[in-house]
């Protein structure tokens, strides 16, 4: 039987955009910078998989929200971009 592709574990995924501070007390502490660009977990995971830096992506969703298509497009452009001169 073919081996299943490994499921990315929680440890593998470092949230690239969330710099929110959780206080656990229910009170905000520090900036809630995640609101700068609302990214859904599915988009965040896709970006992590594709190695896309979300801060460089222009969102096309409601209110400039970054959608999966935007990440896929960014990944495609990056792949197609000519390699930087050595």
């Amino acid at each position: 039987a073919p081996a299943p592709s490994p499921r990315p574990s929680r440890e593998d995924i470092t949230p690239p955009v969330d710099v929110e501070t959780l206080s656990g007390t229910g009170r905000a502490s520090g900036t809630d910078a995640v609101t700068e660009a609302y990214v859904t977990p599915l988009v965040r995971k896709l970006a992590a998989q594709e190695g896309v830096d979300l801060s460089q992506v222009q969102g096309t969703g409601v209110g400039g929200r970054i959608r999966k298509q935007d990440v896929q497009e960014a990944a495609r452009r990056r792949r197609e971009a000519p390699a930087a001169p050595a």
Partner: protein
Amino acid sequence: MSDNGGTFDLLILGAGSGGYAAAIRASELGMKVGLIEKDKLGGTCLHVGCIPTKALLHSAEVADAARDSETFGVKAGFEGIDMAGVNAYKDKVVSRMFRGLTGLIKAHGITVIEGEGKLTGPDEVTVDGTAYKGTNILLATGSKPKTLGLDIDGEKIITSEHALKLDRVPKSVVVLGGGVIGVEFASVWRSYGAEVTIVEALPHLVPVEEESSSKLLERAFRKRGIKYELGTPFESVKTTDSGVSVTLQGGKSLEAEMMLVAIGRAPVSEGLGYEEQGIQLERGFVKVDENLHTGVGNIYAVGDLIPTLQLAHVGFAEGIYVAEQLAGLNPPAIDYAGVPRITYSEPEVASVGLTSKAAKERGYEIVEQDYNLGGNGKSQILQTQGSVKVIAQKDGPVLGVHMVGSRVGELTAEAQLIYNWEALPSEVAQLIHPHPTQSEALGEAHLALAGKPLHVHE
């Protein structure tokens, strides 16, 4: 020599949740499927498990509603339970679902082979003298009640199967085992008017749940007049003229009309030729690797037969997994921690993901928010108590959701997405939940974890 029953791409032994889900998915993927069943399509869950117990629990809910109707300004006297009526309702639901399933299996062109099968080769199952060949074989023979060697007479000392067929409401019952099944029956009988005592050797009811959930359930049960003996192992039982006399370690004894033995379910793996073909068993469970492969030939196993969570939807998921695996679809492994667990008692206990204890054991630094249903409008309307506790990794995703309260089981659907999609509290908090619903409690807990509590009392 046995007759030749033909060759199947996938030959499945047992048509319960695991077996029939594999059959359906495999047939969708173009395989020729043989499904062997000695009893009825649907197995434990449909006939003596999930469905009939939840029908009893709904009758119980109706009984409670009638009993408490005055609280809501409704004049309705509760006059008792008509077990014949309960059973007719329950059987009607089961047979309707059974007809549906039978039609589904037929529509998929799956060959159903009636009879008791035995594994007679690495690619062969024999049923009533006919040998069927399978390019792949799936073992899905499920489980049966554990009885600890007790003398189950079906009258005074019973298992869940007998409990589902009672023609009367017992005056008093001792429920041996405070796990899901024991707690559900205790809840039903109490709503029906019985005196119920649960005996559990571990220190808590539903002991695999988050400890705070167990405590909330215990408090609710105490209010409902359901008694329990926790941390006191059972010692012995003897039948008396009027019922049973149960002795606990330490000497305490309990008298009741009957005793339900609900101490877990053991895999059905004996005498079926498994070991003869080289399949390894452990405490009766078939051992499988992460692909649910037994290590022998092309033999796989799913459901209650293997040592994963004994839940119908786990059986479904495993059955589908094996079918997709065989079709070369390379399905992602099942994350068992991400499977929703529901105890359908009144109140319900439900969870997805890790308990705080497990999360700490795995080395996570965690933050928690326990949202009391006292602050949730819809729960107040239902007059239910309980809480929704969300556990997250510090600066990271949600690791677990643990809930207690009437009807909270349905909330695991959302919790399942949150956990499995590794959502951050802030990503959930961004979406304001519909008002007034119980799901708002989940929303509030995430809002609080995201540092922006709305209706949260400190």
